[in-house]
């Protein structure tokens, strides 16, 4: 009988399970939109909520072996680098901040948009925001668990790049 359990030789980079995630995510988007009556915004919030609950849990696994972050900017930098490259293959390209709780994270080729839009084309621009709602929630959930309560929105002006806007609530 063959040995069971996690087989490390199969799929050493986790590429297979990443594809699996993408197919699952696509189905979740379809499902959520099929539930929509008229109010698309409200339906996308279901995706955002699912992302939030995943983000809240997964960040513990990502950051547990590390000492506490120095400050809020340190958390954001971690999100832009190790967190992003582990989940989305690459780091955030640009981070802007006003140093008062507002951050803009720009990814020039976001993984969930990379197979969809070509540079300089407006095709799919209208449909694309639905593919970011889950990721916005994931980001918000992760930040919440690290102690930064925030709102996260996404902006797409030219595929496949996008900007995540984070606004941290100050007590």
């Amino acid at each position, binding site marked *: 009988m063959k040995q069971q359990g996690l087989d490390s030789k199969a799929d050493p980079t986790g590429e297979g399970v990443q*594809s699996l995630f*993408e197919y699952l*995510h*696509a189905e979740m*988007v*379809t499902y959520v939109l099929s539930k929509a009556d008229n109010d698309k915004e409200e339906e996308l919030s279901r995706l955002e909520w699912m992302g939030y609950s995943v983000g809240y849990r997964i960040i513990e696994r990502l950051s547990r072996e590390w000492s506490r972050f120095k400050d809020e900017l340190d958390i954001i930098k971690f999100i832009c680098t190790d967190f992003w490259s582990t989940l989305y293959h690459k780091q955030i390209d640009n981070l802007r901040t006003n140093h008062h709780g507002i951050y803009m994270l720009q990814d020039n080729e976001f993984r969930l948009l990379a*197979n*969809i*839009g*070509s540079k300089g*084309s407006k*095709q*799919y621009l209208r*449909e694309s925001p639905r*593919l970011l709602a889950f990721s916005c929630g994931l980001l918000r959930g992760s930040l919440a668990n690290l102690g930064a309560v925030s709102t996260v929105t996404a902006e797409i002006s030219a595929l496949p790049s996008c900007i995540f806007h984070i606004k941290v609530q100050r007590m």
Partner: protein
Amino acid sequence: MTIHNLYIFSRNGTLLYYSEWNRLNKSGITMEEEAKLMYGMLFSIKSFVSKISPLDPKEGFLYYKTSKYTLHYLETPSGLKFVLNTDNGAQNIRGLLQQLYSQVYLEYVVKNPLCQLNEPIQSELFKQKVDALIKHSQYF
């Protein structure tokens, strides 16, 4: 060497995609008719080839060749059909057809949740990637 044109058919015969590069002669019929004739011909050749085969046909029909051009054929187990016409200098281009499937169709149709399978492919990114792959191939 030259690549003339490409057809991609779904498993039930819908023309998913057509593109041409160096096609000098037109068939003189509409694209719709041409696609229907092409699909019907492929279907007939395929069933004839396996019916008449004196041995287990394995992969079956791979290509045909005229004095001017070669038609190369790849069918995936899922029934997708890739058809590429080239001049007779380009032989053994199965690898290129495989690449069209695994590097372009998979990445930019299957992995694009906004593309429906079995419907004509609208994605501009897909078109660009097909074009780039063909033009950069050694057979172009």
